[in-house]
C-alpha cells in the first residue's frame, strides 16, 4: 500500500524544487564543521571561511566525533548532513598531534562523497591582523577574481587536484551578467613548493588608466595561510565521467508571443479582447445610482404625495 505525498503549501513545493537536480546548476552550498578537537587557529580559519562564503554556507559549531572522511565508514554522517542541508562542498576541520590544524575539503555528487583533499594550515593570519583602508573592503557575496601562480599546479597531481577544489570552493555562483562596478575581491594562490600553497584574499583597487581597462591594485585584507597538502582522494573514473557530463544545450523553450528583432530588440505581443463599452459594468456603483434604490425612492415620493392629497381632501 503506497500513498502519494505532495506538499500542501506552495512554499514547501518551491523549496523542494530548489533542491531538485537541475539541468543548469546554481552555486554549490558549503558545509563547514569540525571534529572532536580543534585548535584556536583552526577555529578562526573555519569562521573566516564561513564569513567569506556568507551567502551560501552553513556552519556547524558542535563537535562531530564520528566523521572520518578518509575512512570507508566515517562518511555516513557527512552524507546525511549534506542531504539535510543541501550542501555539496564541505570543509571539515580537526586538530591532532599527527595532523595539526587539519582541513579536509571535499565535494559531493548526489550527496555521496566525490573527492577529498586534506591540507594542513600553517602561518595563518586572520582578517583582524591586516590593516587597510576600510573603504576598499570587499562586500559580502561579490564574485571574486581567482589567480593561480606556479608550475606546481600543472605538474604535481595533488596540486592540480587542490586547484580544482579551491576553484570550486571559492568561485561562488555562476552568473551570466556581471556588474563591473562590483568587482572588489581577488584570491591569489601561489605554489611555493611541490606541496605547499600560499593562499591569500585581497581587495581590489581600480585605478584610472588611459584606456577603458582600469589598473588593478591588490591590497591584502583577508585571511592568508599556507596550505600543506597531506592526503587526497581522487574520484573513481566512472563517477567522474558521470559527474562531468553536461546537458548538451537543448534549444530553449520558445516563449510564446515574444520575438526578437535585430533593429528593435525584443518584441512582445499582447492580445486584448474587444472592449464592449456599453455593456461594461462600472466598478463601484454608487449607492444612489442603483436603479432599485431610485425606483423605491420615486415610489415613496409618490405615496407621500398621494397621502398628503388624501389628508388634505379629508
Amino acid at each position, binding site marked *: 500500500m503506497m500513498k502519494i505525498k505532495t506538499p500542501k503549501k506552495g512554499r514547501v513545493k518551491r523549496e523542494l524544487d530548489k533542491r531538485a537536480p537541475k539541468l543548469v546548476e546554481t552555486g554549490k552550498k558549503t558545509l563547514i564543521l569540525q571534529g572532536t578537537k580543534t585548535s584556536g587557529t583552526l577555529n578562526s580559519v573555519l569562521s573566516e571561511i564561513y564569513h567569506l562564503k556568507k551567502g551560501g554556507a552553513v556552519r556547524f559549531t558542535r563537535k562531530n566525533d564520528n566523521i572520518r572522511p578518509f575512512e570507508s565508514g566515517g562518511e555516513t554522517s557527512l552524507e546525511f548532513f549534506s542531504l539535510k542541508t543541501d550542501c555539496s562542498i564541505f570543509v571539515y576541520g580537526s586538530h591532532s598531534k599527527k595532523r595539526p590544524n587539519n582541513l579536509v575539503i571535499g565535494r559531493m555528487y548526489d550527496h555521496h562523497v566525490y573527492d577529498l583533499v586534506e591540507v594542513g594550515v600553517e602561518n595563518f593570519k586572520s582578517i583582524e591582523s591586516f590593516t587597510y583602508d576600510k573603504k576598499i573592503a570587499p562586500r559580502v557575496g561579490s564574485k571574486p577574481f581567482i589567480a593561480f601562480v606556479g608550475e606546481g599546479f600543472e605538474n604535481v597531481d595533488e596540486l592540480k587536484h587542490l586547484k580544482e577544489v579551491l576553484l570550486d570552493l571559492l568561485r561562488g555562483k555562476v552568473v551570466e551578467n556581471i556588474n563591473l562596478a562590483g568587482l572588489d575581491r581577488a584570491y*591569489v594562490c601561489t605554489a611555493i613548493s611541490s606541496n605547499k600553497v600560499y593562499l591569500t584574499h585581497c581587495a581590489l583597487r581600480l585605478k584610472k588608466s588611459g584606456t577603458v581597462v582600469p589598473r588593478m591594485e591588490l591590497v591584502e585584507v583577508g585571511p592568508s595561510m599556507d596550505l600543506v597538502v597531506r592526503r587526497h582522494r581522487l574520484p573513481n573514473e566512472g563517477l567522474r565521467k558521470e559527474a562531468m557530463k553536461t546537458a548538451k544545450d537543448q534549444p530553449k523553450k520558445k516563449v510564446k508571443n515574444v520575438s526578437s528583432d535585430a533593429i528593435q530588440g525584443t518584441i512582445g505581443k499582447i492580445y486584448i479582447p474587444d472592449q464592449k463599452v456599453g455593456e461594461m459594468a462600472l466598478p463601484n456603483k454608487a449607492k444612489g445610482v442603483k436603479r432599485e434604490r431610485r425606483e423605491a425612492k420615486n415610489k415613496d415620493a409618490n405615496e407621500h404625495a398621494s397621502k398628503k392629497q388624501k389628508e388634505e381632501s379629508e
Partner: protein
Amino acid sequence: METENQNPFQLDVGNLLAFNPFHNFPSLPTSRDELVKECLQEGTKLVQAVADSLFNLPSTEDVDGPLVKLPPPTTKLPREKHLPKPKPPTKWEEFAKKKGIKKRKKDKVVWDEQTGAWKRRFGYDRVNDDKDIPIIEAKMTDEPGEDPFAKRQDDKKKRVEKQEKNRLQNLKQAAKLGALPSHVQLAATALPITGTQAPPKKVTKDELGNVAGMAATSTASGGKFDRKLPGEKPAKKQGKHRKFLPVVEGSGICSREKEQTENVLNKLISKHSHEILNVDKAVTMYNVKKEKKARNRKNQEGRSSSTSNKLKPKKQLHKKGAKKGPGSSKKGKA
C-alpha cells in the same frame, strides 16, 4: 585595434580565473614579506590580464554600473547532482500518442443550456453538477429498489478511486526509472499484516512516554537506578504522594513536629474534655444499646418462658437496677 599579444596565462573569463603555469620560485625568498610581495605581484599581473579581457567585452549601461555579459566558463567542474531524467510518458500519454489523440485547450467557462448562463467547467456552481439533476427517468434495465441518485454518486466515487490508482501506478513507474517529480514522495502507509487481521494500533504520545516507566516498575528498585538514554525524562510517580517532615527544624512557632505531637497528646489526655465528649452522641448510643438489649430479652422471654418463670423476673429487676446505676452517674456528671 586589437593587439594580439601572446598571453602566457590561461584565462577563464567566465570564472574570472587566471592561471600562470610558467612561474616558478627558483629559490624560496628568505623572508616571508618578500614571498608575500612576490605573490601579490604575480597575482596582480594575472588579475590585470583577466580584467583586460573583461572590460573589453560589450557592456550595457545599468543603474549601478556597466553590465557585462560573461562568456560561459571554460574550466569543467563536476556537477553537484545528477542530470534530471526525463519523465516517462504516462499510460494515457502513450495511448494518446498511439491513437493520435491531441490535447485540446479547454475553456474555464462553459455555456450552460439549462440556466442560460456561462458557468465554470469545474468547481463551485459548475455546469453538469450531480446535485442539480431534479429528475432521473427510470429505464427498463433499472432494478426497482435502487436509488439512482446514490448510484450516480457511487459511480463518481469509483471513477475517482480508479483515477487515483492509475496516478499511483504512473508515479511508481516514474520512481522506478528515477524520474519522480521533486515535490512528490511515495510513502508506504501500512506494513503487511501477519497473523490476526487486526490493524496495528496507534500508540499515543502519552502512552509512549509512560512505557519506560511501566517497564521500570518491574525492577527491584522500581527503576530508580536504571541507565537512562540521553534526553529521557525521569518517570512520573504514580500513586499517593507522601509528605515527610524535615529532620531538623527550628523550635519556635512554626515547628511542625511540635504541633503534630501536641495534637495527638491532647486527644489522648483529653485536656479539654468538654470538647472531647459529644453528649448527644453518648446519650443516643446509650438509648440505642438499651433498646437493643430490651428487644433481645423479650425474644428470650418468648422462647424460654415455661421453664424459668420463677427465677427470671428477679434477675431482671436486678439487672435493670444495675444498668440504671452507671447511666444515672453519667447523667449526674453531665
